[in-house]
C-alpha cells in the first residue's frame, strides 16, 4: 500500500514537471495549472472511491485524473491539443475529463463544478449507488455557486464529499484552525458549510496518514447515507505555483531532498517542510517501510512513464480541422 501511494504521488509530480517543461518549450499553449504539493490529497481521496463514484475537479485537475487511473499518455496528448487526447484535443488542460473513470465533465470556472456535483450526487441517490466527490480550490468559497450548492446538498441530503483544497496556508498555520486564504472573511473556512448544517472539518494536506483516516471515515459516512460532508485540506502553496505561469524553482524535484540533501533554492528549502511527498517518504523510511532504493526504482519508473507520455503526445497528430464541427450535438 505504501509503495502504491508513493508511486501515485511520484507519477503526478513527474507528470506535472513534464507539463512545465513543455510549456517552457512552447509546446503547451495557454494557461495551465499543476498539482505539485497537493498530491497526497488526490491519492488518498481517490483510494477510497469505487468505480460507481463520480469525481469533479477544476482547472487544477491533472492529479485528480491520474489518481482516478487516467492514462498519462492520453492526458498529455489532450493537454497538447492532440487527436490522441481524451477529448481529441478539444478540452486541453482546462476541461480534462474521462467519463469512463467517473469524471464526466470538468469546469474551469471557479465554483461552477459544485452545483454539477450536487446533481451527480442526486443521481447517485436516485439510482442507489455511488457518491460524488468534488475537489475545488479555496477561492471556490467566494462564489455564490458554492453557497447554493452547499445549501442544496444540505436540503436534499445527497451523498457528496466537498474537498476544498486550500493551498494558501502558510506552513506554520497548516495544522491550526485559522483561515488564511485570499479574501474570504470567515474566521475558519469551515464556518460556512457548518452554518448550512453540513458537517465540516479540516485536515493537514501534507500528512498522508491523516488524510487516509479522514477520507476513509468521511467517504464511509457519505456512502452510508449520512448526507453531505465537507473537508478543508490545508496545504502550502508550492513555490512553483506562485507565478502566473508555473515554473520549477530549483529545478525538478529531487528524491535526495527526502533523504537529507538540501536544495539550493531557499524557497524550496522552506517549502519542503510542507511537501506531502517528502514527509511521507521520511516517515516510511523512519519506519523502515520503504527504503531509498525502492523509492528510487519507483521514481525511475514514474520518470520513464511520463517521458513516454510526452513522446506519445508529441507523436499524436493534431486533429483535422473538420473535427472542429463534431460533438456540438450528441
Amino acid at each position, binding site marked *: 500500500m505504501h509503495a502504491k501511494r508513493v508511486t501515485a504521488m511520484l507519477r503526478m509530480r513527474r507528470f506535472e514537471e513534464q507539463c512545465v517543461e513543455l510549456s517552457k518549450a512552447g509546446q503547451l499553449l495557454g494557461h495551465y495549472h499543476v498539482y505539485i504539493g497537493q498530491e497526497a490529497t488526490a491519492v488518498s481521496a481517490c483510494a477510497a472511491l469505487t468505480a460507481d463514484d*463520480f469525481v469533479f475537479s477544476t482547472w487544477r485537475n491533472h492529479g485528480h485524473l491520474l489518481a482516478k487511473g487516467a492514462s498519462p499518455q492520453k492526458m498529455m496528448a489532450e493537454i497538447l491539443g492532440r487527436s490522441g*487526447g*481524451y*477529448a*481529441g*484535443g*478539444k*478540452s486541453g488542460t482546462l*476541461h480534462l*475529463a*474521462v*467519463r*469512463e473513470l467517473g469524471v*464526466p*465533465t470538468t*469546469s474551469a*470556472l471557479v465554483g*461552477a463544478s*459544485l*452545483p*454539477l*456535483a*450536487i*446533481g*451527480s*450526487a*442526486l*443521481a*447517485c441517490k*436516485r*439510482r442507489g449507488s455511488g457518491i*460524488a466527490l468534488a475537489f475545488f480550490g479555496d477561492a471556490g468559497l467566494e462564489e*455564490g*455557486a458554492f453557497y*447554493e*450548492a452547499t*445549501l*442544496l446538498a444540505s*436540503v*436534499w441530503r445527497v451523498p457528496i464529499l466537498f474537498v476544498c483544497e486550500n493551498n494558501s496556508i502558510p506552513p506554520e498555520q497548516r495544522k491550526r484552525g485559522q483561515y488564511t486564504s485570499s479574501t474570504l472573511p470567515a474566521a475558519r473556512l469551515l464556518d460556512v458549510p457548518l452554518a448550512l448544517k453540513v458537517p465540516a472539518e479540516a485536515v493537514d494536506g501534507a500528512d498522508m496518514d491523516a488524510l487516509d483516516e479522514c477520507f476513509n471515515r468521511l467517504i464511509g459516512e457519505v456512502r452510508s447515507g449520512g448526507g453531505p460532508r465537507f473537508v478543508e485540506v490545508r496545504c502550502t502553496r508550492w513555490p512553483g505555483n506562485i507565478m502566473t505561469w508555473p515554473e520549477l524553482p530549483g529545478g525538478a524535484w529531487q528524491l535526495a531532498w527526502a533523504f537529507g540533501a538540501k536544495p539550493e533554492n531557499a524557497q524550496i528549502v522552506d517549502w519542503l517542510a510542507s511537501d506531502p511527498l517528502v514527509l511521507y517518504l521520511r516517515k516510511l523510511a523512519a519506519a523502515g517501510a520503504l527504503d531509498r532504493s525502492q523509492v528510487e526504482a519507483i521514481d525511475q519508473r514514474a520518470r520513464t512513464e511520463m517521458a513516454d507520455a510526452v513522446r506519445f503526445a508529441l507523436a499524436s497528430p493534431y486533429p483535422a480541422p473538420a473535427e472542429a464541427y*463534431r*460533438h*456540438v*450535438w*450528441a
Partner: protein
Amino acid sequence: MKISFAEGLAKAIHESLEADARVVLIGSGFMGLNMAARKLLEPSVQKFSDRMLVTPVSELGLCGAAIGAAVCGQRPVVDIGTGSFIFQAFAQIVNEAANIHYMSGGQTSAPVTFYCLAGIRGGGAAQHSHRMQAMLGQVPGLQILAPGSAEDAYHLMKWALLESRNPSVFISHSLLLAETADLAPGAAVPPVGKARIRRPGRDVSIIANSITVPRALAAAEALEREHGVSAELVDLRTIAPLDRETVLQSVAKTGRAVIADECHRSFGVAAEIAATLAEEGLAQLKAPVCRVAVPDVPIPFSPPLETELTVTKEKIVAGALKVLGR
C-alpha cells in the same frame, strides 16, 4: 382531441414521468401563477411526489444540479419560473450545459431541460418580461424550444424529457397557456428542428415563434378577410435548431417576408431570419423584409405602455401590408 397548451404540458410531463424513471422534476411551478392551469399538474404531483425535488430560491444551484444529474444518467427538467430568472442561472446553462458534450470530445452528454415562462405577460414590468430565445441563439450546444401551439407544447416537452440527447431551454409563455389545438392521435408530427407551415399562402410569408404564432395566425386571417392577401404562416417551433430551409422555401414562393417576434428588435430572432434572407434568399425578395418585434426598450409596467411595445395582430397586419407596398 382538443387540448390547451397547459394541458399539453401537463400531459407531456405526466406521460414522461410514467414512461421513464429517470425523469425528475426540480420544481413544479410550470404554470406560473395560473391557478387553473396549476391544477392540471396535481395528478403528477400526487403520483410522482418522490420524483419532485424541494427547491430553494437558488436558480443557479438548481440548474447546475439538473445538469449534473443529467450528466450522470437522469433526465431532469428544472422549473426556472419566470423566464427572467434564467439570468441567475446563466453561468450554468450557457457555460456548462451547452459545452459539456463538446469539451469532453463527445464523451458526456447532458439531456437536461430548463423550463420557463418567458415573455411579455401583462404587468410583468422590466424585470419579469424577458424573452431569451435570441440571446440563447448565440450559444451553440443549446436547443431552444419555443412552441406556439398546444400540440407543440405537448410534443416538444415530451421529446425533451424522453428523447433529446442535448440540453434544451423550453420557452413557455403565460399568455399561451389557454391556447387550444387539436391533438390528433396518430397525426404526423414534424421532427424537432422542422418548422410547420401553419397556414399556406401566396403573397407574403409571416415567420413567427412562441406567442407570435397565434397572433400571426389571426393576422393572416384578417389579411385574407379584410385585404384579400394570402399570407403563409411559418411557425418556427424551435429556434435552435433553426429551420432556415422552410423559411427560404416559403419566401421563394411569396417573395415577401414579415417576421413576427417578441424579442427586442435588435439582435432578435427576427434579425437572424432577416439576415438569412439577405444572405441566402436575396434574389427571391421582391421587397424589403419587415421585422415586427418589440422596440429596444425595457418593458414598462403601465398597461398602455406595455401594449405600445407588444407585437399584436394589428402590427403584423400592418407589416404585411407594408411589404406588399400597400
